[in-house]
């Protein structure tokens, strides 16, 4: 899996999803206020926020499940208000809760929803086989969903979203409450879908998932989109530095002096048999730092890069932790 933040992009393609000014109130409580973003083909956009931040409400409005008070949603060039059926044909939806018919087999669940998408015959057979393979459930295709473990049900839940080969795949917290093995399988299938060109909208309150999967992330809290951008852009937005830890032998003071002269380095200090360096874009400038230490007579024995994460960004933007248990 490639690092999403370093993927190369050509000329900006036409967005698959374009939503703007989304607003929804429930009994005068503002659930979502002026939320808008765009997602291009092959791009994974994460909505990151704690539980109750307002992640699901925009999704419900985009899918046409919830009426909007204001705002526009265009999917694959079609407005969901005026061309609902055509717009929905481009959407694959994976709801937060497991939404399956427990008394039907995995194959029957897939065939039913595939038929509703107008897929039939050999094409339906092929797609059912393919998505079952994608979520590693081929061997259990003829078992009823109620016989599955929670993680397997989650995977089938995702398979249903992939079935119509959508231009826009929407996943609402798909890994909540799953075991690590299933979680990895889910994240893997999402990444593969992105690589295949799907635009993906992914909501989560797991910072690690957003960092691992998403090309761009929108930080949402109390129904307001606080900031959006690539991980690096968001980190830069709040002025955080990368931390580089270099374990080395030799004259460490000279090594520190040499390091401070590298472009982007904010500070370098000798600490515990090595150097602690604060700098921008540690990965990009790592070779320069290593050359500087080496040139000053330092013998490097280990290097660790610590980049500021989205947890820190969220804390900075909202004044609170991303997760209750964090």
């Amino acid at each position, binding site marked *: 899996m490639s690092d999403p933040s370093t993927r190369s992009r050509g000329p900006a393609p036409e967005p698959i999803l374009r939503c703007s000014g989304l607003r929804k109130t429930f009994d005068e409580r503002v659930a979502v206020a002026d939320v808008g973003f765009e997602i291009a083909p092959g791009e994974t956009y994460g909505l990151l926020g704690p539980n109750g931040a307002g992640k699901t409400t925009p999704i419900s409005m985009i*899918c*046409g*499940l*919830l*009426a909007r008070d204001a705002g526009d949603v265009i999917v694959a060039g079609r407005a969901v208000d005026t061309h609902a*059926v*055509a717009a*929905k*044909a481009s*959407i694959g*939806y994976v*709801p937060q*809760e*497991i*939404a*399956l*018919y*427990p*008394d*039907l087999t995995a194959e*029957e669940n897939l065939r*039913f*929803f595939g*038929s*509703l*998408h*107008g897929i039939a015959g050999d094409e339906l057979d092929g797609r059912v086989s393919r998505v079952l393979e994608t979520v590693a459930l081929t061997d259990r295709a003829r078992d009823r969903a109620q016989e599955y473990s929670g993680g397997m049900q989650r995977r089938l839940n995702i398979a*249903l979203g992939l079935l119509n080969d959508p231009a826009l795949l929407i996943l609402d917290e798909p890994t909540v409450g799953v075991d690590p093995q299933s979680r990895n399988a889910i994240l893997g299938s999402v990444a593969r879908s992105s690589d295949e060109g799907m635009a993906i909208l992914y909501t989560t309150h797991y910072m690690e998932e957003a960092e691992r999967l998403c090309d761009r992330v929108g930080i949402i809290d109390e129904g307001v989109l606080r900031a959006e951008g690539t991980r690096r852009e968001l980190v830069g937005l709040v002025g955080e530095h990368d931390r580089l830890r270099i374990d080395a032998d030799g004259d460490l003071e000279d090594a520190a002096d040499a390091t401070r002269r590298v472009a982007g380095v904010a500070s370098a200090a000798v600490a515990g048999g090595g150097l602690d360096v604060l700098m921008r874009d540690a990965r990009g400038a790592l070779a320069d730092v290593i050359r500087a230490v080496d040139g000053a007579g330092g013998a490097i024995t280990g290097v660790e890069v610590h980049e500021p994460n989205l947890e820190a960004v969220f804390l900075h933007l909202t004044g609170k932790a991303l997760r209750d248990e964090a």
Partner: protein
Amino acid sequence: MSVIRPAFLIARKDLVRRIRDRTAILTAVLLPLGLAYIFSLTLANVDDAGFEATYAVADADGGHLAGALTQTLGAIGSVTVEPVPDAAAAERRTDDGDVDAAIVIPEGFTAGVEAGRGAELIVRTSADASIAGLVATSVVRSFAARLDAVSVAVAAASAADPGADAAALAERARQLEPSTEVVEATAEDRVFSSITFFAIGMAVFFLFFAVEFGVRGLLEEREDGTLARLLVAPIPQVAILAGKGLAALLVGLVSTTLLVVATTVLIDARWGNPIGVGLLVVAGVVAAVGVTALVSTFARTAAQAGAYASIVAVVGGLLGGTFFPIASAPGLLGSIRFLSPQGWLMEGFTGLASGEALRDVLVPAVATLAIGVICGAVAWRRARAVVAR
């Protein structure tokens, strides 16, 4: 995409799930069949060896049609006909419980029928003799239905040929359907057995449980999250409601038809004219789906919807006389049954079972259908709010 294809797909999926749910088959077929059998066994003696009834007949007419009615009643096995001098005496004997029912034939009855003017027959039943009262009502109703046919023939002929002799035309019409046929048919066919009554009662009663899953299913889909998937699918929203309704209609039709066939074959119930039975079954299923759907729209959860539908099924069933032959009850109790579709269905089915002609079930069938269509239309509007949050 059209509505029809996704509606069929949704209905098919619901039916597959329904078939896999064994409790559904239990509720829709086995339970009503078993209960009808148990009831009929319990009451077998009443119907067969133990059935006795005494009917008071106040014949103020004295004509040959009045005589034919009295003869018809007397031809029923184990029925004693007791002539009384007038209507007051008949009423007194009934109220005192001395007779099971009283039939009052007013003066000028025969002449009125033969002249095409129509006439009135009064049946007064004792509150203590429900089965015997129902038998009396059924026999007199059947007799009157035949006379109606004669009267209609007379009226039509008179209009075409004003100079015709009405009495002669009536006689000719009567010859087309000999009155002796009435007498002969009554003793064996027009009195239906308790087995038939309870087969009908159980079928009508459980029909409202059989279809209940279809409309409750919408709330279940919402609770299970699958409604969201259906709503995100590229299909018209009305297809979801149409699919649910279609599945409920099919389950109702299949389960009721199975019950009719099974009770006929297994416990010798006699339902009557198959076309009339089919008509009433269709009307009944529409009514059951419509009423159940309507009450379900007032529920917030599937469990609540199930409870509401059960209440309506039980109250409507009791009110409509599915357990007791309420049709022969005097006064308000005998009339209030028509507030429920079950009451209309019982009226239609028992009429058919007692030998009434096909045209005589049209009113019950249309009334039942109307209740279903009206309730269904209101339910449809309300259910659209469920799918369009």
